[in-house]
């Protein structure tokens, strides 16, 4: 298939997944901000979200102070912020539009309708109706697009590039969400009762609360949460599950120059496949996640070079 077509499909999937995970991240942050805590530490959390996306400077140019409402506006509805949910869904739609001949009619319609509906929602209305309802809508639209994709597209390279983009983005985003919450939790010290709510909010944000209950019979502990989101192969948003999918997709689309990228993906996968959570935590979770995100970034580079801008 055309490299440009593959590129648009890959980014269509990445932006859709990114919008969904951003909704998840903002949702968990918002839930946590409702817990009793000082205004200062609350605003610290919102600052962390900006830092996570390296957006402090861009934010500071437009908004006077870091608070719930400003950060939500910036991250949800601001078209000038390239990382906002608004911008992600617009980029997803633009990528789909450029290759709509490759998409099934249902797929194009679900992506296009998502964008058209988003455009009609003003931030004031979103706040008035309750921001969580909006986040649920984003998650649901992403699920719809994913479902229509799997349910209607031919099992060929077009689908493989879509899945590859989605998996890469999801792995990166899960690592980010986990890293940030872990960081915040550690800073706040040991208030066991609050921590329970924080950890359960984190689990809910990645649709893993019930999963946790099913898999572990014990109380919610940071080590178990980390294990679930990093190492469990059967947890669909875990780093391990994403790496596993990436390796399989790369095998399906392999070409004459992609061996090195495949090897790197294999290494990433093996490190997750054969890891033990105690070792991961002993070396420091933040360092581990930073290394993972770095490897994902380089994989993205390799994929782009081997397939998407190839001569």
């Amino acid at each position: 298939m055309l490299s440009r077509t593959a590129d648009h499909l890959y980014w269509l999937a990445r932006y859709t997944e990114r919008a969904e995970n951003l909704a998840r991240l903002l949702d968990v942050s918002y839930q946590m901000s409702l817990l009793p805590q000082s205004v200062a530490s609350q605003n610290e959390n919102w600052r962390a979200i900006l830092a996570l996306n390296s957006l402090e400077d861009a934010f500071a140019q437009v908004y006077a102070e870091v608070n719930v409402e400003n950060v939500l506006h910036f991250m949800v509805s601001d078209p000038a912020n390239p990382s906002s949910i608004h911008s992600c869904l617009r980029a997803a739609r633009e990528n789909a539009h450029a290759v709509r001949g490759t998409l099934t009619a249902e797929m194009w319609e679900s992506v296009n309708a998502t964008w058209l509906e988003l455009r009609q929602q003003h931030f004031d209305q979103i706040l008035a109706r309750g921001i969580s309802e909006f986040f649920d809508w984003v998650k649901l639209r992403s699920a719809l697009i994913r479902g229509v994709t799997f349910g209607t597209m031919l099992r060929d390279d077009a689908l493989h590039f879509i899945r590859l983009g989605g998996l890469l983005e999801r792995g990166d985003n899960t690592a980010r969400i986990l890293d940030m919450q872990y960081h915040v939790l550690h800073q706040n010290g040991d208030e066991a009762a609050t921590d329970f709510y924080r950890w359960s909010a984190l689990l809910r944000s990645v649709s893993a609360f019930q999963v946790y209950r099913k898999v572990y019979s014990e109380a919610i502990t940071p080590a178990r949460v980390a294990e679930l989101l990093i190492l469990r192969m059967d947890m669909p948003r875990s780093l391990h599950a994403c790496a596993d999918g990436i390796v399989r997709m790369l095998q399906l689309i392999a070409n004459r120059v992609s061996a090195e990228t495949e090897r790197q993906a294999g290494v990433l996968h093996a490190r997750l496949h054969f890891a033990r959570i105690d070792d991961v935590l002993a070396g420091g979770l933040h360092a581990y996640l930073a290394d993972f995100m770095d490897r994902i970034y380089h994989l993205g580079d390799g994929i782009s070079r081997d397939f998407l801008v190839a001569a």
Partner: protein
Amino acid sequence: MTANFYNEMVDDEGKLRAHYRAFADWLASTPAERLARKRAEADTAFHRVGITFAVYGEEAGTERLIPFDIIPRIIPAGEWQALQAGLWQRVTALNAFLNDIYHAQEILRAGLIPPEQVLRNPQFRPEMIGVDVASGIYAHVAGVDIVRAGAGESYVLEDNLRVPSGVSYMIEDRKMMMRLFPELFSRHKIAPVQHYPDMLLENLRTVAPQGVSDPTVVLLTPGAYNSAYFEHTFLAQQMGVELVEGRDLFVRDDTVYMRTTQGPQRVDVIYRRLDDDFLDPLAFKKDSMLGVPGLLSAYRAGNVTLANAIGTGVADDKSIYPYVPEMIRFYLGETALLNNVPTWILRRPEDLAYVLAHLPELVVKEVHGAGGYGMLVGPAASKSEIENFRARILAAPDKYIAQPTLALSNCPTFVDTGIAPRHVDLRPFVLSGKGIGTVPGGLTRVALRAGSLVVNSSQGGGTKDTWVLESENA
């Protein structure tokens, strides 16, 4: 006023024409609410699928729906056969003309066309002189605009030999009619048109460079912001070929490749929907971001076929149009079957004088204009519009031609006030390669404003399904 126009459905005495009888019966027996419901259904369906076109000059990315009318334009079998014979004759002669002016230039040496008209025409491409193209075919796809006037005789209004568009609407209109009113198709024997993409692909494959047995065909589009992008997507999808942009292609050793996820893949035939000027920044417009550097060189080396060929614009130019009947006589030894509209060439002083004295009666067109932009329809223009145009003509008379205002035929059409006559034209699509072919009918465009003679979609025109009946009356 209406009485002066030929009506496609009824004759001068108000009696139904035979080929519309079965349809009129159906229309009379169909409740108005059902028709209204079906019209709304058509609107929703076209919007949902996104059959739109972009409008130049409005806010970037503005997309509009082309209005679709549910009353078909019906053509009886015999009439179509005569028309088709005329179209094939005309396009064959135009291809012969192009082959001639880029080679021996016999028609110029015979003195039938003033040489400077051809050689100094901005659409003439000296780069094409001496280049042999596959099967000697230049205009692989022609969209010839036909109108009926006066007592019903047909005229060719324009030969579109560059990148004619509209064929996707022809197919979508048919699909829509079959979905809305299947019963009509069992009552009539209507010649099918949906195999057009197959014919087009087959035609493109016959003109592949020599020695290529299983050619790779692609469709080259200027991109998503082009007004006809929907059609480019549609045709590529229907033919099962890649829809490429200039940046997807590159030239190495005079061979064209596309960039794929499996590495470079050779391209043999390019159905290009991009104007000559933008094809190759090394040869034409230097700042074109849409083209492929080196394409002309690969083309001249005979390693790739461009459809249509480079330089076809000189044959559909409005200043060359008056000479087409001469071409038919010269190359085919035949008399033209289709009429040309009498044309004044304003470069000629005596023609200019006549036209300036009769502006309110005439249609004046820019020689290189297209899409209904930059024209004056005298009878519909205000005094000041006419005076403005007069100044433009005087400033550069050789940029214009003039024609009598044709009394374009009417076809009944749904409008806000009910069913009323509106002016129509017809664009059949002629495919030339190893052979020549057309799908029966073409795209009927209708001017939706009462009295308007401009059918272009960019000027508020709509479309109708076009039926060629397989027998005379049904």
